[in-house]
């Protein structure tokens, strides 16, 4: 029966895509492991990217701002810097300090006080 249906489908619906969303098994098997994640500190609206520096400060980009979170459970939060556009991905290295991707502007390098060290606005092609 399924063979007949398959043939009919191919005749009448030759352009129909095969549904390709993978089955959620093996490594994708659903579970509830994230329910064990604990909220740290108070609420933060739209925390996008996270990184931690060598001193244990957690930096979080949220909207146009970057927060510096310290203390036990990172509950002490201070605005580090505010940009004119949304802040996205974050990275930290000793050499560059905190690197912040700023929408439409480039990558900004900051020291631990939030002072701008420099901007990367274009890369070599």
């Amino acid at each position, binding site marked *: 029966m399924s063979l007949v249906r398959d043939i009919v489908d191919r005749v009448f619906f030759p352009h129909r895509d095969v549904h390709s*969303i993978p089955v959620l098994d093996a490594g994708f*098997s659903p579970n509830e492991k994230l329910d064990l994640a604990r909220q740290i500190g108070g609420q933060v609206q739209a925390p996008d990217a*996270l990184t*931690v520096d060598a001193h244990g400060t*957690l930096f979080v980009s949220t909207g146009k701002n970057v927060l510096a979170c310290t203390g036990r459970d990172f509950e002490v939060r201070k605005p580090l810097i505010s940009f004119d556009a949304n802040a996205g991905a974050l990275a930290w290295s000793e050499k560059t300090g905190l*690197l912040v991707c700023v929408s439409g502007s480039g990558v900004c390098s900051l020291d631990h006080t939030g002072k701008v060290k*420099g901007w990367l606005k274009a890369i070599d092609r």
Partner: protein
Amino acid sequence: MLSDLAFPNGVCISHDGRAVLWVSTWLCRIYRYWIAGDRFGQLEVLAENLPGYPDNINRASDGTYWLALVGIRSPVYDLAMADPSFRMRMVKQIPPDEWLCPGINFGCIIKFDDDGNVRESLWDPGGISHPTITSMREHKGYLYIGGLENNRIGRLSLPDADPTWTSWDSYWARSEREKSNSASVYARTDHVVSA
């Protein structure tokens, strides 16, 4: 380096410093672009047909990688993604809060290895604790979780993870000590100019 990409996102340097991993969010793929070694300059698909839309990638302490899935695919949304004219009519004719969108009432982080195999996944199927995850960062035995549509930072204990491992050490300090082949990667940061 590369152009004409479909929503490139989630850039991460591989553990050996020889390749850049990145995702195409709308194509549900993980790519690898070699920046050193024999395969320098080659681009390859590391994993495809993911069940959701990938966002941030970060290294994991066990030599694998964490990847956030910001939304989950559905047959209807897949169909819409295959038809640009439909999407154009949608954005012109109906308000944004009624647009079709991926399943965002889920939370999912997957862990994959250098062969593109998915080793493990962490789910929040009800989207109660951490839906719409856009990033995660492993640090000293914990995974820190953020989400653009969320209102909290999550922390998940990783009992099997190295409690001393930090991502900044993995990306920068350790590699610098070892003088690995990733000199070209560090050179990028030298482009930062004075304000």
